């Protein structure tokens, strides 16, 4: 179902609780009473259309209005993506890690195998934080500098000093695929590892991995299909300055 501005915000969450993630990452607190999506967005200084498009993308895998997205400000995406990164690093990843560690602790006889999984995931966490670090420390500041240039109609000192030589293509060369390892982990857990007797814990670990994977897929889609084309547009624009 298409999500529209006059729907009540609370109803939206009843309809699809996964959208809580969008609401949190766009910076809207709960406690909606009977307010509509539009009212809540205005109150929190969030562009209603931006929220609606994001909510629809997360709600419906078929919905992806690339053109509509390209008109939104790059800063809005950066804010959203930053909060998403934070959510991964502070909550989702530690939660999965905790579950793995607690499985290792419980299983004594085949713990060597779980030790492998633990190390595998530790590697993954390192990879993910490098990946996120690169975006936070280089790419996002670069995009902010670009949009500042466009606002001022000239290349700013900050841009000339820090980013004159940089371009989004440099980032694309360095940036690695962060979903493949998660995919592997899932398959190892489902197909090749003897499960412990406490299936509930094991399942909840798998469940968390599936959820993180889906989340990452949408996240990468926003970065690759919207943010990067948008940056290319901006790069073209300042070439003439």
């Amino acid at each position: 179902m298409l999500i529209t501005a006059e729907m009540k915000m609370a109803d939206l969450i009843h309809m699809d609780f996964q959208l809580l993630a969008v609401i949190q990452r766009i910076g809207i607190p709960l406690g909606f009473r009977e307010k509509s999506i539009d009212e809540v967005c205005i109150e929190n200084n969030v562009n209603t259309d931006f929220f609606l498009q994001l909510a629809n993308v997360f709600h419906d895998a078929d919905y992806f209005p690339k053109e509509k997205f390209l008109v939104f400000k790059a800063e809005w995406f950066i804010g959203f993506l930053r909060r998403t990164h934070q959510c991964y690093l502070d909550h989702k990843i530690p939660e999965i890690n905790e579950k793995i560690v607690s499985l290792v602790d419980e299983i004594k006889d085949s713990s060597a195998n779980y030790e492998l999984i633990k190390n595998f995931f530790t590697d993954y966490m390192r990879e993910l934080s490098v990946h996120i670090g690169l975006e936070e420390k280089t790419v996002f500041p670069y995009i902010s500098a670009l949009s500042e240039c466009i606002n001022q109609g000239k290349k700013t000192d900050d841009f000339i000093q820090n980013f004159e030589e940089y371009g989004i293509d440099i980032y694309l060369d360095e940036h690695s695929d962060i979903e493949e390892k998660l995919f592997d982990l899932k398959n190892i857990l489902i197909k090749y590892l003897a499960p412990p007797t406490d299936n509930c814990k094991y399942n909840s670990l798998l469940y968390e991995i599936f959820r993180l994977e889906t989340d990452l897929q949408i996240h990468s889609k926003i970065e690759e299909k919207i943010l990067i084309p948008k940056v290319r547009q901006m790069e073209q624009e300042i070439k003439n300055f």
Partner: protein
Amino acid sequence: MIKVLICEPSYLVRKGLISVLNELKGGIDIKETASTDDIIETIGDTAPNIFIINTSISSILNMEQLLKDSNDEIEVVSVFNSPLNLDSSNTQISIFDSKSTLLNKLGEIIKSIDIHNEQETASEELSDREKDVLREIALGKTNKEIATNLYISTHTVISHRKNITRKLGIKTVSGLTVYSILNQIISVEDIS
């Protein structure tokens, strides 16, 4: 399981094809895309048995080039935006085709793949040669080193790697290493 990849710009046609496929047989794994962005990666990732593509797209692509890297046989079905003659083959469908025509054509293709798959499933286990290659991968060797060690060409190494990944559902080197240890193809001491 039969895997189908649909590359069709029209949302209506895409959903219609999916609905026909689902009526033919349960449990078909269907992936869809509206455009040719990343189409090479998508084909590589999904390794489809059937690739349904609209002729308005396939006519501007170099299809041979596109499919040459996938060593499995892919059945390509073309979707035409115009009516077709009655004697059109099973691998040509039109957006004007009736439900029964579509069910017949696609049904024949699925049937032939099913028969082919039944013969193949026995070989879903890794072959001895693939295990040799897997051992080398898990030890962190490059394709070139593996080729030298096993007296095969790098091209053969790459094709073994593809089959290993397809059979196990594991893509990364570290994932393959974990699998190898779990299945005693290498031991933890080997890699430390």
